[in-house]
Structure formats: structure tokens, C-alpha cells
């Protein structure tokens, strides 16, 4: 269960970016690979918990699931895996350990609101 420390890192990263640009974060967009070693549901509940009392309180974590894609040396092409239990090309069956994507754990964007004063 390391999702708590991952959530803390995400919030730290977003807070830093927001402070640097003088903006308020409404949502954090995260790319999460199937081989990142992070469980999405656990991460989402940790995020909410860790946000509490920080400038990101009330913000949302939007997770884009990134499937595993391998490079098949027979097809000379990138192929998405249907299961992480079998690293074989789904087209021709050639085994491949060449992972093109699926390990991502990356904050890609922030949805922000400028910190302009609001008229009542």
C-alpha cells in the first residue's frame, strides 16, 4: 500500500506548479500505466484524504489508464497487450519483453483557475 505516499507526491508536485504560476488547481490529470505498480482505486481514496487541509482540497484526480503496449519484432509493430499475464504479440504470438508503454505514473496537466479576485 504505497498509494498514500504516491498521492502525497502528486499533491506536492501540483502544489508546487500552482504556487509557481499563481493559480488554483481544480483537477490533476494523471496517466497511470497498467505496470506502474499503483492501484487506481486506492490512489483515488488516498488523494482525497491527503488533499484535506492543503490548497488542493476539493480538487479532483482524473486518471487516464494506460494499457501495456509491446513492440513485436516479428510484426515490426507496436501491439497493445490484452493481458499482463502474457507478454506475447496478440497478432502473431511472438514473445516480447520490449515494453513501449504501461509504466507511466505521470502528472500530464492541471486544470486551473486564475487566482483573480472574485467580485461579490
Amino acid at each position, binding site marked *: 500500500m504505497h498509494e498514500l505516499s504516491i498521492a502525497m507526491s502528486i499533491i506536492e508536485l*501540483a502544489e508546487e506548479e500552482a504556487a509557481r504560476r499563481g493559480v488554483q488547481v481544480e483537477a490533476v490529470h494523471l496517466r497511470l500505466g497498467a505496470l506502474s505498480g499503483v492501484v487506481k482505486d486506492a490512489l483515488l481514496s488516498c488523494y482525497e484524504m491527503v488533499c484535506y487541509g492543503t490548497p488542493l482540497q476539493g480538487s479532483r484526480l482524473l486518471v487516464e489508464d494506460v494499457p501495456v503496449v509491446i513492440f513485436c519484432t516479428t510484426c515490426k509493430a507496436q501491439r497493445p497487450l490484452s493481458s499482463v499475464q502474457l507478454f506475447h504479440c496478440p497478432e502473431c504470438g511472438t514473445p516480447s519483453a520490449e515494453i513501449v508503454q504501461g509504466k507511466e505514473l505521470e502528472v500530464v496537466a492541471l486544470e486551473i483557475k486564475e487566482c*483573480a479576485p472574485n467580485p461579490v
Partner: protein
Amino acid sequence: MRTEPRLIEVRKNVLKQNDVTARALRESFHAAGVFVVSLVSSPGSGKTAFLEKTLTLLRPNNRVAALVGDLATENDAQRLARSQAPVRQITTGTLCHLEAAMVQTALEGWDLNDLDFLFVENVGNLVCPSSYDLGEDLRLVLISVTEGEDKPLKYPTIFNSADVAIVSKMDLAAAVEFSWETAYNNIQAVRPGMKVFQVSAKTGEGMQAYLEFLVARLAELRHTASV
């Protein structure tokens, strides 16, 4: 004036800080010519016995040391100290994995130039350690014959973060009707081409081939560094 939310691009790895520390560690290991091996496995699969045997067998001809991660006790460090190699415990508290910064802190005061091999035993866990680079050259994932042959299928992520698999407690294989072929095929299914060693730390079976592999990798590292 109320503004509409807008999107700003960030593109930052969440574990960037760990990766930066790990990279710095790897550079310092390579500069000193020390080959670093980390071990991951579930609790009770025999990491410490395997490491004790490794240290004992390597020590006559190589300068070895170990860091050992554990949640609460220092039992593992005491066991490993029997090998006469320098050993330090990293007590993680409730943290389920080691991070690069913990390795860095644990190494303080040790001169890396005095070492050929450094071993880092992670906390017993097949999930969390997979996300954290520790600056090692080689990551070993251990599974024992008593755990069943399907461990690789249950934890494909850790197998994909490791370089070599070790099947331990081979002396118990017959007693638990362990199928080497099934286990090997499962490892190859989640990590095609992965090198696998069968060992018994108790009887010493298979240890020689694995140690020769490590010694060859150290020679390779030093050769690359001197070119």
C-alpha cells in the same frame, strides 16, 4: 471577474525525486566500480537466507556489504552479520518499500571504493517496491517453491521491474510437488527471456552458477567503466 478553468500542461513523473536520487546513486556506484544488486520477494520466501549464503560464498574473494530493509526488527541484519560482511539495517517503520533516499542515507560513512558488491534487501513485498528505482545494477526477484508456481502471473509488475528471477528453497521442491516447468513457463509468460536460477541456500545447490553470473557482471561493469 471569474475565469473559466483551463488546462496547463505539466508532464512530470510523480516519482521524479526518487528517480533523480537513484540516478545519482547509480553514478556514484559506477564511479567507485561497485556492482549493486537488490532483492525483492514476498515475506518468507528466503531472501535473508539466500543473501547470507551469497555474502558468505562471495566474501573470500570479494569485498561485499549489505543493506537490509525491514519494517520493525533488526533480526535480518543480525543474521546477515554472521557472514562477517558489513551490514546495515534500514528500518522503514510502516513503509512497505525502500526508496532511493533511504539507501543514500544508509550508506553514509561507507567508502564505496572499498566494495566490489553491495546488496540491498528490500522489504518483503511483491507490489510496492516495483515502482522505486534504488540505483541498483541488477534487481533479483525471488520466489520460493513453497509459494506455488503461479506467483509470476499474480505479480507481473514486479517481474517486469526485475532483471533476473531466483527460485529458492529448491531442496523442498519434491516435498511440495513443485513443478519447475510450470513456474519457468509462468515467468517467461510475464517476462519473456528472463534469466532464472534455481537455488537452495540451505544445501548450496545452484549457488555456484548464480555467483559466477554476478562476478561476470561485475567484470563487465568495470570493463565498461575503464573503456
